[in-house]
């Protein structure tokens, strides 16, 4: 297999700082761009990552400087996979209320988990709820809600 088609991987433990966490995705986006992923996939992956890393640092680790976040990313020509693990107590993603409900539609907050689930093709949490694994499949962008 030619070198430029080989899988790209990154594994890094970062402090609980959103600025550092946010910048890390640039490396994945560069690897995906090198493999000719379409712009819509890049945008969706970057946004889902941003939501997940902020959740891990802010809600998981509660910005505790003594805690770290483990970020693992990989991509090849067809799939990009991101796993983010924080050192918090975890949460139950099924218990997050739907921000699209009439009562919550105009209430700020609570849209990160929804966006991750809609932007990525596969999303899984571990039992404890402190680790998310999300997968983007090249070119497979399901229509957004309300779009025919």
């Amino acid at each position, binding site marked *: 297999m030619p070198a430029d088609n080989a899988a790209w991987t990154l594994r890094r433990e970062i402090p609980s700082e959103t600025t550092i966490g946010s910048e890390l995705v640039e490396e994945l986006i560069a690897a995906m761009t090198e493999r000719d992923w379409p712009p819509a996939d890049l945008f969706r992956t970057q*946004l889902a990552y941003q*939501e997940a890393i902020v959740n891990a640092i*802010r809600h998981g680790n509660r910005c505790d400087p003594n805690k770290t976040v483990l970020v693992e990313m990989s991509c090849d020509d067809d799939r990009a996979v991101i796993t983010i693990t924080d050192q918090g107590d975890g949460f139950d993603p099924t218990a997050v209320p739907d921000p699209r409900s009439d009562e919550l*539609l*105009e209430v700020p907050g609570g*849209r990160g988990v*929804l966006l991750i689930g809609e932007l990525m093709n596969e999303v899984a949490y571990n039992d404890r709820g402190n680790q998310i694994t999300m997968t983007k499949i090249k070119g497979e962008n399901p229509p957004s*809600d*309300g779009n025919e």
Partner: protein
Amino acid sequence: MVPSRREKTDIRLDDSVLVVAPTTKSISTRKHAKYFSADVAEHLTPTAVSRLRRVVIDLSGVQWVSSAGLNELIHLHSLARSAGTEMHLLGVCEAIRDVLRITRLERIFDVELSSWESASRSAEELNPSAS
């Protein structure tokens, strides 16, 4: 309290319309979203709003908005409405439209497409068989 400084938001009054244009390519981090929101909120005091017909958030230069950005847009929408004016989103690109659709915020925001999308839509309407 909003922390000290960074990119300023481009804000102008155009014939009783407050036109607001973020100067960043994304409204993604909580910090930048708060800065943006604070810049606009300064112009939404009761006295200032009494001279406004509407508020336009021009997103032509913005490529994507995260949930942190959405939170601030919702906040500004509420502020504008409480002050008795209305808020529109202008120049919304496909990526941001996706996010508004997914979150169903299209139901509360008055959204206008970016100019090139409007143009391509018009072309499609004129020639539906074109790919």
